[in-house]
């Protein structure tokens, strides 16, 4: 096959992958995720386990060591045999805590400790870099096979040499495009997963096609193959390598079983990308079946390759050279695509997983620690920072893999490099299993376990593999790899258990331990963050991570679940727990915990809190589902009642005040009127005096009239008898008119208005005069009360999905503090306000009634860095209802 055709086909395949990922992302954005969420897609995505090492290397491995290659697949098969009680539990606990990576899981379990997560990230990066290099190498080697096949291949060898760079760059682009699109509360990447599922199918088809060709095309069916295998196992040239060694067999099965749980990319697809644990019912048998199919023909291909190809041929490339030597060009191309798929899918997922870990445990915590100035935090957009950190990390991971590939020269056998990564990540296993199964496991144990395991792995496995230092001399009967695995894992486990027994976990750790081991929802400490005033800073902080709308929506949902209206829920332990876990889905458990602690100004846990928490958790576990839902319903009703009662009490106080206020507001102008009209009766007044006093009487009478008009307007609106004069208008014009009308208020102030003109051109059908009245009122209020040195009023208009319009008016003053936010829409709310500025305090009450009459509403938006009002307009006003009232009035 010509090299150019190969490159063209390969590019077409890459374009297909981009298209599939793009289409899946679009479908997911539109909510059509039923087929994306299918358990089979999940199962296929697990096949990133089968990297290029497996695809090409397994045959080479089998050529050298016979059946031993199967250990890499048998370990995962055993783990999946226990999916029902093992993996399901892992996925459930991880989803419950919104865990973003293996490092995040360990850190969340051991007291949300970030240094621990940073250490695991370090191991993961060190272990993964050679592994990524290995994938790049496999792509380069497979290109070279085709380059040397063609007549002018020698000239193209240079081109093939650059492939590693091109592949790395292309994969970085793909990963950044589809892996860092958003920073949702759950880290799922539908586009990536779907593309990988498709690649998994290509991998499998290529392998099975080649296998069938080898067994029935090159050999005479299964019987003949078995005879050849038997003969090969007796061939003195390789028989020594083919005999299974109990120590290696056991150690490799243990390591591969550990790897399926701890490799960052496996954790990403198996746990983080899983919507729930139900899909493991299918994956439990389907993934072992996939592995079975991928290994069924390994031995036949190895045997036939050894028989048919020249002795100096690289066994790691039998997969390609065997069909090519037999003239099966199409088959060779299919195999090439399979290998390409294996390499790329592994690199993409690995880069996403590592980038999440690097950004969540290295970059973001470091950056937050460097910038502890609270003032600057109000405005900065953390979401963009985190996403950029991930993009940077992806580039760094790719670059490191490519540099390693260039530096190592690609000499090492594929299998050796894969095993280095496996054994490194296996060091996480003791802490992971211990953390999930044993409540006594604690952070000191985890540090000691990792520390010793990591050190021994570096010394015995990693450094010798890159040619630095040497493994210690061992007796010939002891296999060095098996020895290193046993020694490092045993030291790791012993240190973990020993230090856990003698250490004492801190309260946060004990709460998390209980939650992980019993798989119950964690309940946060009850002693911190009391009072409504902390809810607003929390909302502001959440906005910085998720963006405004998502944060407001979450807070509103939580508030309404508590039976409260508005955007600020009570800071119950339950709410805080949920918020922290959702946040940890974006930035990791340790950072989320630290941020909430900092913003909330929390008190650390005490032992009595802990007992209370343990009690609550125990109760939650035992309580029946029915009872629980009844209780929440009851609690919600109680909260609603309490809120209504609070409001009534406040209202009754206000009612008394209302009478006093009305009296005051009426008597004040009346006093001037009466005094001056008596004065006018005095005979010896000059003409100017008479004119001036009459003018005062006139002004004060006008003030009285306005007050009475307002009161009347309000009572008409409140009784629902308002007459609506519905017309169509452009919001842009309305806002312009309102700004002009309101500019008379405190005309001396220089007031900047920040508008988004293009977005304002929205048609609305409503009573435009009434809407204008509301806009003028809100804008005048901003002009009156915004206390910033350079007052800025931001006006933002948009059309929600449901139609209508949403107008946000946000100033940069000091805003309205928590307790008063629920009162400002009441009549005479500015009762005892020193800055009453002459008004009677009916404006916002009228606005609220107008918006209700128009079928919309006006609300105060907390946490916007100033006083902020949101006006919601429905697509059209409830015209029929108002006409009905009109008829009733007549």
């Amino acid at each position, binding site marked *: 096959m010509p090299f150019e055709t190969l490159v063209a086909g390969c590019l077409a395949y890459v374009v297909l992958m981009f298209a599939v990922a793009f289409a899946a992302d679009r479908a997911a954005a539109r909510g059509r995720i039923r087929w994306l969420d299918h358990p089979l897609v999940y199962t296929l995505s697990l096949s990133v386990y089968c990297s290029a090492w497996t695809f090409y290397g397994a045959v080479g491995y089998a050529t050298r060591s016979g*059946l031993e290659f199967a250990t890499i697949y048998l370990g995962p098969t055993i783990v999946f045999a226990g999916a029902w009680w093992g993996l399901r539990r892992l996925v459930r606990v991880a989803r419950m805590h919104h865990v973003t990576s293996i490092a995040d899981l360990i850190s969340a379990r051991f007291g949300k400790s970030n240094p621990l997560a940073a250490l695991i990230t370090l191991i993961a990066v060190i272990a993964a870099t050679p592994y990524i290099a290995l994938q790049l190498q496999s792509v380069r080697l497979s290109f070279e096979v085709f380059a040397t096949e063609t007549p002018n291949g020698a000239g193209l060898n240079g081109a093939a040499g650059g492939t590693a760079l091109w592949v790395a760059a292309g994969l970085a682009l793909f990963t950044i495009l589809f892996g860092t699109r958003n920073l949702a509360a759950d880290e799922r990447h539908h586009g990536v997963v779907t593309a990988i599922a498709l690649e998994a199918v290509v991998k499998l088809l290529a392998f099975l096609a080649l296998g069938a060709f080898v067994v029935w095309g090159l050999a005479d069916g299964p019987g003949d193959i078995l005879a050849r295998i038997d003969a090969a196992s007796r061939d003195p040239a390789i028989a020594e390598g083919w005999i299974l060694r109990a120590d290696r067999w056991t150690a490799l099965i243990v390591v591969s079983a550990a790897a399926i749980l701890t490799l960052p990319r496996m954790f990403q697809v198996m746990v983080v990308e899983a919507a729930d644990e139900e899909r493991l019912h299918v994956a439990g*048998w389907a993934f072992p079946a996939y592995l079975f199919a991928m290994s069924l023909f390994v031995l036949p291909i190895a045997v036939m390759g050894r028989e048919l190809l020249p002795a100096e041929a690289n066994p790691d490339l039998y997969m390609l050279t065997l069909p090519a030597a037999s003239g099966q060009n199409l088959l060779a191309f299919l195999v090439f695509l399979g290998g390409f798929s294996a390499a790329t899918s592994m690199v993409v997922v690995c880069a996403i997983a590592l980038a999440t870990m690097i950004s969540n445990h290295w970059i973001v915590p470091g950056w937050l620690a460097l910038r502890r100035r609270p003032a600057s935090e109000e405005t900065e957009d953390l979401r963009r920072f985190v996403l950029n950190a991930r993009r940077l990390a992806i580039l760094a991971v790719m670059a490191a893999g490519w540099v390693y590939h260039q530096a190592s020269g690609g000499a090492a056998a594929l299998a050796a490099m894969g095993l280095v990564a496996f054994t490194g990540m296996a060091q996480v296993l003791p802490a992971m299993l211990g953390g999930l199964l044993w409540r006594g496991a604690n952070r000191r144990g985890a540090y000691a376990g990792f520390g010793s395991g990591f050190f021994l792995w570096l010394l015995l496995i990693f450094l010798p593999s890159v040619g630095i230092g040497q493994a210690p001399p061992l007796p010939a009967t002891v296999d060095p790899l098996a020895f290193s695995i046993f020694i490092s894992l045993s030291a790791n486990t012993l240190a973990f258990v020993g230090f856990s027994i003698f250490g004492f976990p801190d309260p946060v750790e004990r709460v998390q331990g209980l939650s992980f081991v019993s798989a119950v929802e964690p309940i946060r400490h009850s002693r911190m963050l009391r009072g409504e005033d902390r809810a607003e800073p929390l909302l502001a902080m959440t906005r910085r991570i998720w963006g405004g709308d998502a944060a407001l929506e979450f807070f509103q949902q939580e508030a309404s679940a508590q039976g409260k209206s508005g955007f600020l829920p009570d800071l119950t332990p339950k709410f805080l727990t949920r918020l922290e876990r959702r946040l940890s889905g974006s930035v990791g458990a340790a950072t989320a915990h630290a941020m909430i602690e900092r913003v909330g100004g929390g008190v650390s846990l005490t032992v009595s809190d802990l007992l209370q928490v343990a009690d609550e958790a125990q109760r939650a576990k035992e309580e029946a589902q029915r009872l629980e839902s009844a209780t929440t319903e009851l609690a919600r009703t109680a909260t609603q009642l309490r809120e209504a009662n609070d409001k009534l009490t406040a209202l009754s106080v206000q009612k008394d005040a209302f009478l006093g206020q009305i009296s005051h507001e009426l008597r004040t102008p009346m006093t001037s009127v009466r005094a001056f009209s008596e004065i006018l009766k005095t005979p010896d007044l000059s003409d100017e005096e008479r004119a001036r006093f009459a003018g005062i009487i006139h002004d004060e009478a006008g003030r009285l009239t306005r007050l009475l008009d307002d009161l009347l307007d309000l009572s008409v609106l409140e009784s629902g008898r308002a007459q609506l004069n519905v017309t169509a208008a452009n919001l842009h014009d309305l806002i312009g008119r309102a700004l002009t009308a309101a500019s008379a208020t405190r005309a001396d102030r220089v007031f900047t208005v920040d508008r988004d003109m293009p977005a304002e051109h929205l048609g609305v059908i409503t009573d435009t005069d009434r809407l204008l009245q509301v806009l003028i009122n809100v804008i005048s209020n901003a002009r009156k009360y915004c206390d910033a040195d350079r007052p800025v009023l931001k006006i933002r208009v948009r059309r929600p999905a449901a139609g209508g319009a949403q107008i946000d008016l946000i100033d940069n003053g000091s805003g309205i503090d928590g307790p008063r936010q629920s009162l400002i829409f009441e009549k005479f709310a500015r009762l005892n306000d020193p800055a009453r500025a002459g008004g009677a305090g009916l404006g916002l009450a009228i606005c609220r009634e107008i918006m209700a009459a128009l079928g919309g509403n006006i609300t105060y938006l907390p946490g916007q860095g100033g006083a902020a009002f949101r006006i919601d307009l429905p697509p059209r006003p409830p015209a029929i209802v108002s006409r009905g009232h009109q008829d009733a009035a007549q």
Partner: protein
Amino acid sequence: MPDRPLFLERASFRRRRLGDAARVLPIAATLLILVPAWWIPRSASSAGGAVWLFGLWATLIVAIWALHRALLRAEAATLRAEEAVAEAVRVRAGTATGTPAAAAPAPAAADPEGDPGAV
């Protein structure tokens, strides 16, 4: 609950036994895979070993599939039994309190018709 129905007991009993089987399966699989390599490495390394290994592997996959299917069915059965019990309890409570439970839906049904007349 004093008189927990027998079919609920049986469903949850079956589910628990299947759960035990799910725990034993990976252990049994581990032993069957490891022991030949420890015990008779030479014969396990040849074609016979390959046939044994792949046969065992295929059997294991079928076993996991069957077990998961049975477990899902048992869980569904337990859920159904629990719902039936809850239903029975509700019915008994309904008859004990007499009319209110039965009468409650009636006004709600009449409501849509009553409304226009009122206006």
